[in-house]
């Protein structure tokens, strides 16, 4: 609950999907999209409920659940003690009873104390016993908010090797809404990583008269291009976009950007299809490089598109250290647009 995180800063419209207000469309931030997905699911499905620290009376550390307690009551909006293992455990048990609980981690970093519960209980229970656990664990991830090493992490690789878990990392408001809906409806545990840097910076015109559901496991071509594939997810999408514009303007080459949206299950066919077309690929993520999720993507590309590769697979990632607190150091640590541009140029020149 670092008070400063991403509040009140300038908004940037999402690069695509940003449209003027019209009837049936409403400007919706990434944060509001998440809020709406939960609100609407809770409205229509009485088995959906939420648990977490400060989500009730206080309305959530990021105010995502403001008004939920008043609307849905304390049985469906449960303020919990500081006990992440108990929260996730309770979600599993309620899921066994046919409910669809959403467990909020105040910062996704605090998923660590619930690690055992997730990896050994939630992920394995269906395999072991045939009993499903349709729950969502969601929370703010990511850096750029000057929140230091414990309120900025990207945790996807902790869970990447764990069969039985799904992992989602939306980059746009539309996807945040649609994927969260799909995650809530999914019959198995889903980890839902919201990028806190995008909460109030991303705003898109979303239809009010349409139920947005984005299926899990399907990547999205954010920008078509023929010269180089950039595979990315989360907040890095916007740096990839900037880089693509620079390269287009200055080098006359077109980067295709694939926004993975779901990390597990991974949409390998879409990745392979794009790489086979472009022959070059750059994987960009915000987590440190060593042991990061890019490894799995690279390995799969190498297995499925080896013959089509015209250059090595490259990764642009954060440095292999914890994320520092100091703003200039943090900027230094995180992958920046320039890094993507020069890696792309290196590949294009290869």
């Amino acid at each position, binding site marked *: 609950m670092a008070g400063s995180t991403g509040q009140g800063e300038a908004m940037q419209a999402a690069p695509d999907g940003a449209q003027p207000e019209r009837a049936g469309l409403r400007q919706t931030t990434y944060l509001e999209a998440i809020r709406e997905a939960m609100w609407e699911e809770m409205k229509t499905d009485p088995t959906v409920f939420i648990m977490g620290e400060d989500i009730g009376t206080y309305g959530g550390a990021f105010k995502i659940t403001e008004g939920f307690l008043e609307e849905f009551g304390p049985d469906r909006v449960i303020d919990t*003690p500081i006990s992440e*293992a108990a929260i996730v455990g309770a979600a599993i048990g309620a899921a066994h009873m046919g409910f669809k609980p959403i467990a909020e981690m105040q910062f996704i970093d605090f998923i660590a104390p619930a690690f055992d519960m997730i990896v050994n209980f939630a992920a394995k*229970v269906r395999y*072991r016993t045939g009993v499903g656990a349709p729950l969502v664990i969601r929370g703010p991830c990511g850096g750029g908010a000057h929140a230091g090493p414990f309120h900025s992490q990207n945790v996807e690789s902790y869970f990447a090797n764990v069969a039985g878990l799904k992992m989602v990392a939306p980059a746009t408001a539309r996807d945040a809404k649609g994927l969260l809906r799909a995650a809530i409806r999914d019959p198995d545990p889903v980890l839902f990583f919201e990028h806190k840097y995008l909460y109030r910076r991303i705003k898109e015109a979303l239809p009010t008269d349409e139920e947005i559901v984005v299926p899990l496991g399907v990547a999205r071509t954010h920008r078509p291009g023929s010269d180089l594939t950039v595979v990315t997810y989360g907040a890095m999408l916007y740096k990839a976009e900037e880089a693509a514009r620079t390269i287009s303007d200055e080098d006359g080459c077109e980067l295709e950007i694939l926004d993975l949206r779901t990390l597990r299950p991974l949409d390998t066919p879409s990745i392979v299809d794009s790489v086979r077309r472009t022959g070059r690929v750059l994987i960009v993520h915000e987590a440190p490089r060593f042991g990061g999720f890019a490894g799995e993507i690279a390995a799969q590309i190498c297995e499925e598109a080896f013959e089509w590769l015209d250059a090595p697979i490259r990764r642009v990632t954060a440095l292999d250290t914890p994320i520092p607190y100091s703003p200039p150091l943090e900027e230094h640590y995180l992958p920046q647009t320039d890094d993507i541009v020069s890696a792309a140029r290196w590949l294009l020149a290869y």
Partner: protein
Amino acid sequence: MSSLNRHQLRELYRHLLLTRGLEERLERLWHDGRVSAPPIRSLGQEATGVGGAFALREGDWVAPSSRELGAVLVRGLAPREVLVRHLSMSGSPVGSSDQADRFTAPALGVLGPTGPLGTQLCVMNGVALGFRLRAEPRVCLAYLGDGASRTGAAHEGLNFAAVQGLPVLVLLVHNGWASGTRSDRQAAVTDWLDVAGAYGLPAESVDGNDVLQVYDSALRGVQRARRGEGPSLIVAETYRMQAHADDTGAQHDAEALEAWARRDPITGFESYLVETGFESRPSLAVLREGVRRELDLAVEEALGSVGTGLEKPAVPAVPGESEPTPWTRRPMVYPDLQTHESG
């Protein structure tokens, strides 16, 4: 004097016998190399598992640790199914993926543990939340080892139940040991009842070797929870009469073993039944003989019903699996594959 009628007392007795007898048979199968791990025996503690679960009714749930086979049998799992599971072949009621001694059976209201201790209680809280959300007067019973109570998860689970006022009864089994370490190296408390105070839970101690005391106390906790008065805790004082997971004696304490052997829960209950006139020595012998036959038959059936396993692996539905490729293993077929992870 208990409120149970003759039939119920007989059922209690039968389940004590079934528990001990089934564990003995599992042990024998292990010695014979038919099952791959020795059972986690409840020898000397059978009254705790059996008596606690006996206080539940249909629709309630119980979370036994690996050492409460008795509770699982009381919930209605057939000995044959337990055996098949330990033989770990196809045909097992809950698949062959799980460890043999961790029973989960939703139809019977049984929630099994994972490996790391303490987490089961947290999950039981969620089951109880489910009951409350449905406004159903159902109750959860969670067993908790004295050793397991030292895990962070157990603490969070006890506290969560208390703060939420859930219909949960926790039965803390103070059996003197946690694997190869004495309970007094697990916690510095002199009375394990003090654990309850830290959570604001009402609590009572019982002689864990007296099946009626365990039952009566559990019934009070269950009824309390059913009335919506929230969780409570029982500390059952008992003793583990074997080593953690094989049939060597409990470590380092011949004296304690001898003292507790005199308090054997089955012998004690037999005396009670005879002294109160519910049963005669001969009628008990008939019951014992019946259980012996039942178990012999179960072993026979179980050994006969299981194949070698590989022909049709009883793997339960899974949410995602690698698409087989030439360089990985031959594919496994899962009945209702939900999504794919390609690779």
